[in-house]
């Protein structure tokens, strides 16, 4: 380990993208407070530009040789670059949808600041290799997310959702931090790789205990059953674009963080984590899909759907050490998941804004009222269900392949069965849009931001589905991790 505290291990370029976004967020704080009238648009524009610059700074790291920065507390590797790119892309798309959603409202200026802060936290979590930083960045993803949920302050469900989110988050993250202290106690180091090297001789019972506690924190962010309880209420209480953001960015960050922790600090399947995660994955996907079957609120339905999707992805994490195809599979799935989930939430935001409801009958006959948004939503749902040739299908194939290769055939069978069950509730929404006569005449709320967000996501769903090579080669680049 390099000499701590010396200036030589400072490497500002290693945090270039984070610096840009964090600095921008700081600058935008006073602006967001004072901006009035048309100036309210300024933070969104600035955030957009900042995110594009940050993507430009992140992209070169995809091909960089893995190295450590800041005295071993921060990683510069393709893995981090890939997940940061996904987080930045997700933030951009949410930003587009939010810009339309809060057009002219008080929140128009405030939302981008919180978005930037949350994405910086997520990006940090993908790169942090130090227990202290992990705790810090987990809080940094969570806190702006609480704020985002509470953006519409007069909204009672939003208040309740925020309280729930906050309390759950506080408790889960505290438990997790407690678990991390055990890792420190067992090895005397905060560095993940040092922990990994020293943990081999440690008492397995204590390691298992620590792992169990740590999983709670990640499980909270990743909406794994039984730590998912906050998700349906939060998704329903928040405005739809925010729900989309919460369903993607904290999840991506937590998956990246968990992968780093497992592969660096708990190597060689210590404490049988593959089996534990496989069981959690099976429970999560089955529970999410089964509960989703009876939902009538679309945001709740998508909440349970995203719980189930987290289960699918966890399936590949369980085999991350057994097969080299697991990491690209998860990475690819995140690209697909980002496209299809954010498209669904963007259309839902338009519906919700126009009708003030996200119940199933709000989309009744949407195929006639608003053909293009309805088509985009149908596409997103079919992709979530895994119908070829959309991105969700290719993604599910990769995940199933990884599970089979990794020796969890039973898990692949459970997942495949789950995909059948899931088709039902997605098909119900599609049937509602196309097989029912509309009862209202309103289309959906217009907005260029919505349109851009939906188009980008729909295009991604189709293009990455037909030519998975495009995203998969990036994902393969991004599966190189500093170890």
């Amino acid at each position: 380990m390099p000499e701590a505290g010396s200036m030589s291990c400072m490497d500002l370029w290693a945090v270039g993208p984070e610096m840009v976004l964090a600095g921008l967020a700081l600058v935008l704080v006073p602006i967001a407070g004072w901006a009035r009238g048309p100036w309210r648009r300024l933070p969104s524009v600035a955030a957009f530009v900042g995110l594009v610059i940050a993507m430009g700074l992140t992209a070169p790291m995809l091909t960089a040789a893995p190295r450590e920065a800041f005295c071993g507390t921060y990683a510069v590797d393709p893995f981090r670059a890939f997940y940061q790119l996904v987080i930045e892309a997700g933030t951009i798309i949410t930003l587009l949808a939010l810009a339309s959603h809060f057009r002219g409202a008080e929140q128009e200026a405030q939302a981008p600041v919180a978005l930037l802060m949350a994405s910086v936290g997520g990006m940090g979590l993908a790169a942090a290799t130090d227990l202290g930083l992990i705790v810090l960045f987990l809080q940094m993803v969570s806190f702006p997310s609480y704020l985002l949920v509470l953006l519409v302050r007069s909204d009672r469900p939003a208040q309740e959702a925020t309280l729930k989110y906050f309390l759950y988050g506080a408790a889960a993250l505290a438990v997790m931090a407690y678990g991390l202290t055990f890792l420190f106690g067992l090895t005397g180091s905060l560095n993940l790789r040092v922990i990994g090297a020293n943990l081999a001789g440690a008492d397995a019972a204590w390691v298992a205990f620590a792992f169990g506690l740590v999983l709670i924190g990640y499980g909270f962010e990743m909406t794994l059953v039984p730590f998912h309880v906050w998700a349906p209420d939060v998704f329903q209480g928040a405005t739809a674009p925010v729900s989309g953001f919460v369903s993607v960015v904290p999840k991506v960050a937590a998956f990246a963080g968990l992968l780093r922790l497992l592969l660096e600090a708990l190597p060689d399947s210590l404490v049988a984590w593959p089996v534990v995660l496989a069981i959690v994955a099976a429970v999560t996907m089955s529970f999410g899909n089964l509960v989703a079957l009876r939902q009538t609120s679309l945001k709740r339905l998508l909440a349970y759907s995203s719980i189930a999707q987290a289960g699918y992805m966890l399936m590949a994490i369980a085999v991350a050490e057994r097969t080299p195809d697991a990491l690209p599979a998860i990475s690819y799935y995140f690209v697909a998941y980002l496209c299809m989930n954010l498209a669904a939430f963007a259309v839902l935001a338009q519906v919700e804004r126009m009708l003030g409801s996200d119940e199933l009958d709000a989309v009744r006959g949407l195929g006639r009222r608003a053909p293009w948004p309805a088509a985009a939503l149908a596409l997103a749902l079919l992709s979530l269900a895994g119908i070829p040739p959309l991105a969700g299908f290719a993604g599910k194939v990769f995940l199933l392949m990884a599970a089979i290769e990794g020796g969890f055939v039973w898990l692949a069978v459970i997942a495949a069965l789950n995909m059948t069950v899931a088709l039902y509730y997605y098909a119900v929404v599609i049937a509602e849009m196309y097989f029912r006569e509309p009862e209202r005449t309103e289309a959906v709320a217009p907005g260029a931001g919505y349109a851009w967000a939906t188009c980008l996501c729909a295009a991604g769903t189709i293009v990455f589905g037909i030519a998975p090579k495009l995203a998969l080669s990036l994902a393969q680049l991004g599966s190189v991790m500093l170890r």
Partner: protein
Amino acid sequence: MIVLLAIPALPLLAALAALRVGRRMPWGGGEFVVGAAALSLIGLMLVPDGANLSATWFESGGFRLTVGLEFSPLTWFVATLVASIALGVGIYSLGYMAGKADRPRFFAELGLFIGAMLVLVLSSSLVILFAAWELVGLASYLLIGFNYAEPGAPQAAAKAFLMTRIGDVGLLLGWLLALTLTGTTEIDALIGALGQQQLAPAPVALMAFLMLAGAIGKSAQLPLTGWLPDAMIGPTPVSALLHSATMVAAGVFLVLRLYPVFEAAPGALAAVFWIGAATALVAGVIATGEMDLKRVLAWSTASQLGEMMIALGLGGPLAASFHLAAHAAFKSTLFLAAGVVQEEAGTRGLDRLGGLIRALPFTGVVFLIAGVALAGIPPLSGFWSEEAILATAARQSFGAALLIVALIFLAGTYIGRAASATFFGERRPDDVGKPAWPMKAGMALLALAAASLGWLLSGRLGSILPFSAEPDLASAWRAFALVAAILGLAFGARRSSASAFGVLPAKLRAGLMAATEWPTIATMRISQLLNVVEAALDRVAQGIAKGSSVIAGTTHSAERQFDAVAELAAGGVWRLAQNSERAEALGFARGGDALAIDIVGIGERLRTLQSGRLYLYTLALFVWAAAALVAGGLMLWL
């Protein structure tokens, strides 16, 4: 090569064209679909045998996923069949859909189906086959639900989609297994590896069973039969094309396409036989008691597909392909005729129909030709293909041959009953219209095929398809089968308005439906149960949240107490200060120092800054952070 690609692409393009400009066309976009089907058929004649269009989709970790179309005798044969039936049904649909709402959507979905089905049969790669397999399922879902205003249509559509998708899980896992075994999705590579005995028997057997699950779902075999009769709520051309001739035959096609896999797994082949036998018998018996013309035909379809499975299970792929073709021709004809009956007489109920042969002579004759073909009367198509199956069965065992004869008797019974109830006896509906000419043309085309296909293919099919020919049939069996067919027809015709076997068919049907529906019901129950669990968890969470807010409230009130105490103290201090001020004023003469006043002024301003909005506090925090950042940056650079 370009022709090969154009064969499935043309119907897909026609679907797009129908959707975009169908509204302005005289036939509502149907002309595109019919034209595309005709061109695809011509294309199939033009492409040379052995043409192959294959490319690597992508490679990942030693696995090569390929996409491609292939022209082998089997794929050519089935593709030609699909395109021909699509052409006939397409022409019929022009008349059927005339004057109906939403024609462009109908033809777009039909075009999507035809394109996807052609991809399915021509594909040389398991991944493309699976993608097309799912797309035909999607098209079927959309087409069954086409008349969504009709009660029950959306439910039937969903049921069909989901039940077939249960089988699709098997197919998905099956091809993933093939991919892990051979490293590629090419069907030829899989079959080649099997030929060279490179694969261990256990995974091959597992793969065969998984693929069989897909075939069961698509071909409505037991236990996934229930969706097919319900799918009859869709428009009749859809029933004719998807749910009798092509899509439901995809399961049989899958077994045919991967026949070497099944041959390498005797257990799976036996399962094919037993599942086929059970379905053929049960569905055949149910068909004799059904009171809805289209549902009779649907059960009959399940039964006939079961017969093909029997042939496959007994090692007669040639007989199965023969029956696949013959059945496609006569069953689609029967459906088209049933569609005319429904359109012109306004009902499908066998108890409300009768004597229509005088009102609808053309349709009646077409129905009778196809019905007699189904029953297996020479020289129509069914006779030849049933004979091939019987020959395969007789070679294997006496019992299997007896089963086939029993099935021939059942087929005669249900079709004789349906025909006599619809077209003979007392004339029931009075105001019966005339079918439009495209409907007649479509029916005539397919009826011609139903009549002549058997004679055309008999003896020649062996030279077209790469399967070994079935043995010759002993003349005793041939006579026995013929007698069974005639007896069945006569028996069925006499029982026209009632169930042929009393309450047995109805009971079987109820049992079957219940048995296939329990997984759905059980799933929904579990879902409800989990929702209850979830709600309980939620209440616990709310309790915690409320509890903590109560705690927060208590701390808040405690804080207020502290506040009051502090205020009291502050007041005391203030008074003390005032007193001291007074003392000061008294002690140091009156009036204040100008400097003191200034300081007080600054203090005042500071006070507003301190006690101002929360926002300013946070702002100060951010300014601090920014300052620290800038300072850190400067330190780094200096």
